[in-house]
């Protein structure tokens, strides 16, 4: 099964490892993911104002491109996934949006391309038990915990990703790699997102609550699917490291762990 | 042994063995295109039966009277005829046990108008079907002429969906293939596209010719009421005057009465002496019923309920439900 891959701009620069490990793992699992020839930034946020159609132009252009290929569009970064799924939903449900956007782009797109997250491909099309079989160096004895954030789960009516209050997909993923999946209450709380640019103090407190809650539940590593969550969680580790002898909790992209588990030989030195 | 002999042998055997006390079939007529119905009560008459490419009329409705004076009747039935039988069964007008059905696979019947148009009418003595061609024996010519059957079939046979009988006790000959598929709804879509006034003018011209001879009603297996509203005086549903609105009332209401019950056999249009395209009205209703309430073909399964006799809570409406 061939997929059109939409990496997103952050994965080409600050989060290169996210895309590389994703492609590496895809190969190991026999998934053919081919990057779209031409794509632009997805806009990072979905326009919430009713009359803002301009931000939909870029995602719809990419969706139409995937449409020509007749393939599903796979995204990795949670923000891109959020924007694409909601843009698709708008094109399908809102006649005015569809007329304005496709009219401007002069492209005939009706919202029929299926947007799937890399994790959804692993779960629905590969299957976590098949992944468990393909794992060569399982992450034994590691207590890992998922950090979902907001953009993948909410709003449920448009994302249809998992139960927004009680998700399980990342925990199942972690267990399929042989690690122990730990739960902590703040796993679906917001990391502050762009506030770390404008309101650093608030972002630090928010991330602090998340990290302390994780630490209280014995979490040894956080698994994320969004470069901004990764940045925030990594940047504000001092709420843990300030206390004497406290060390922070490493943050990994889920693809890093996947690639590592699928690779041969002793567990290589973890990539940051 | 060709079908004519098979039919004759079958009829004779039925009547001798008293399996039925009446056999209804098609006979030969004075002209090549005639196939008048035969009502045989003794084996000798079986010799007059004739299978020709013109056995078009649907014999089913004769059962309504004949079964009142006969214990059991045998009937030769083509594919479209059996939909008529199913219609009468569904309307409880005949009992299945009172009828012995002898199925006749039919690969399509000849259209005299098309033969005439090709200059084969005068002096044409006989037309026989052989494989995919018609064999024409002409007066004063030794060898018979062979012509491709496809070009001379009746329109309704080109659109036929059930060449083989759907219900029978015995089958004469092997089942046949459906002729080329032609979209029966093509004409309806054409008429439907016209603007409103143009449509009115189209039907005004057609229906004004109606002389209310009721041939269409008499041949139609779906029109099997004991007493038809168009014959009633109290109440006077439709006036007797030779006026357009009465003719429109008759044709619209008759089509509505067979909505979801018309078996699309085309007999009404064939029987109409004034060449009114009645099937274009009935097929419009068939199309609308299928579009609105799902695929339905009348006369296929006598146990199911016609679309206007049932409903689903989430049915769409042909009008705004605001």
């Amino acid at each position: 099964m061939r997929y059109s891959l939409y990496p997103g701009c952050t994965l080409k620069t600050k989060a290169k490892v996210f895309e590389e490990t994703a492609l590496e793992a895809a190969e190991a699992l026999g998934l053919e993911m081919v990057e779209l020839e031409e794509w632009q930034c997805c806009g990072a946020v979905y326009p919430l104002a009713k009359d803002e159609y301009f931000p939909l132009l870029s995602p719809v252009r990419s969706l139409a491109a995937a449409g020509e290929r007749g393939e599903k569009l796979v995204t990795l970064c949670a923000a891109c996934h959020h924007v694409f799924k909601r843009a698709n939903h708008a094109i399908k449900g809102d006649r005015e949006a569809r007329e304005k956007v496709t009219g401007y782009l002069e492209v005939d797109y009706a919202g029929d391309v299926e947007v799937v997250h890399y994790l959804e491909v692993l779960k629905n099309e590969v299957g976590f038990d098949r992944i468990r079989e393909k794992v060569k160096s399982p992450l034994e004895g590691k207590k890992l915990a998922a950090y979902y954030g907001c953009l993948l789960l909410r709003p449920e009516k448009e994302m249809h990703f998992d139960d927004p209050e009680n998700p399980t997909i990342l925990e199942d993923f972690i267990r399929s790699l042989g690690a122990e999946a730990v739960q902590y209450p703040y796993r679906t709380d917001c990391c502050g997102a762009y506030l770390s640019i404008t309101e650093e103090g608030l972002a630090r407190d928010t991330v602090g609550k998340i990290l302390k809650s994780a630490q209280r539940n014995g979490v040894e590593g956080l698994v994320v699917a969004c470069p901004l969550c990764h940045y925030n969680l990594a940047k504000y580790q001092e709420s843990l490291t300030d206390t004497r002898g406290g060390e922070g909790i490493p943050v990994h992209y889920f693809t890093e762990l996947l690639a590592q588990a699928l690779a041969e030989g002793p567990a290589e030195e973890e990539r940051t | 042994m060709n079908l004519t002999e098979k039919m004759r042998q079958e009829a004779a055997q039925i009547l001798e063995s008293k399996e039925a006390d009446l056999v209804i079939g098609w006979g030969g007529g004075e002209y090549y295109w005639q196939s008048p119905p035969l009502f045989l009560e003794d084996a000798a008459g079986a010799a007059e039966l004739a299978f020709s490419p013109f056995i078009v009329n649907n014999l089913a409705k004769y059962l309504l009277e004949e079964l009142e004076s006969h214990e059991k009747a045998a009937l030769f039935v083509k594919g479209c005829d059996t939909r008529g039988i199913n219609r009468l069964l569904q309307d409880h007008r005949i009992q299945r046990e009172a009828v012995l059905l002898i199925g006749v696979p039919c690969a399509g019947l000849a259209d005299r108008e098309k033969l005439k148009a090709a200059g084969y009418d005068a002096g044409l003595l006989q037309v026989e079907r052989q494989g995919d061609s018609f064999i024409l024996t002409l007066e004063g010519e030794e060898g018979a002429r062979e012509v491709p059957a496809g070009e001379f079939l009746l329109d309704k046979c080109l659109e036929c969906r059930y060449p083989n009988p759907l219900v029978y006790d015995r089958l004469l000959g092997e089942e046949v293939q459906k002729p080329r598929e032609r979209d029966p709804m093509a004409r309806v879509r054409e008429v439907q596209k016209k603007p409103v006034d143009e449509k009115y003018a189209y039907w005004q011209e057609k229906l004004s010719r109606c002389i209310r001879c009721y041939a269409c009603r008499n041949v139609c297996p779906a029109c099997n009421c004991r007493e038809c509203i168009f014959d009633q005086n109290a109440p006077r549903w439709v006036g007797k005057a030779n006026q357009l609105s009465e003719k429109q009332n008759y044709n619209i209401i008759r089509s509505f009465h067979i909505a979801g019950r018309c078996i699309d056999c085309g007999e009404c249009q064939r029987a109409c002496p004034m060449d009114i395209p009645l099937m274009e009205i009935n097929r419009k209703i068939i199309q609308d019923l299928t579009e609105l309430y799902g695929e339905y073909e009348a006369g296929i399964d006598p146990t199911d309920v016609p679309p206007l006799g049932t409903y689903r809570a989430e049915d769409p409406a042909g009008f705004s439900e605001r």
Partner: protein
Amino acid sequence: MKVTTDTICSDLLKEVEEYSGEKVASCIQCGKCSGGCPMLEAMDLLPHQVMRLAQLGLKEDIMKSKTLWVCASCFTCAARCQRDLDLSKVMEGFRVIQLRQKGGNTMHPRQLTPEQLKDAPQQAIISGFRKYSK
């Protein structure tokens, strides 16, 4: 700011609905949005209070409030609202009223520190500008 017949009869609700598509009038002040909001401590007006002030037409108090600019658009409130309202859209509605005025932008490139430019993923910077400038 006092509640007066002018504020109550003002068309603030209509204006917000134009931008957000949300019927703010149907909010029953149950407080569940504020209950689950991660940015609660930094807000002078809690989300349900913003809705209440909108219902009462107190536009200035809302536009003065810091709340609009600490909302992280994380959709927790929208996911749990029992009246099926999407508060993240209402917040964006108020932000847009401010941002679309001349000089309304609340974030400027010169504010970015060198570390932020070096480390922060583009996603952070772009979403920041998307929310705080037009």
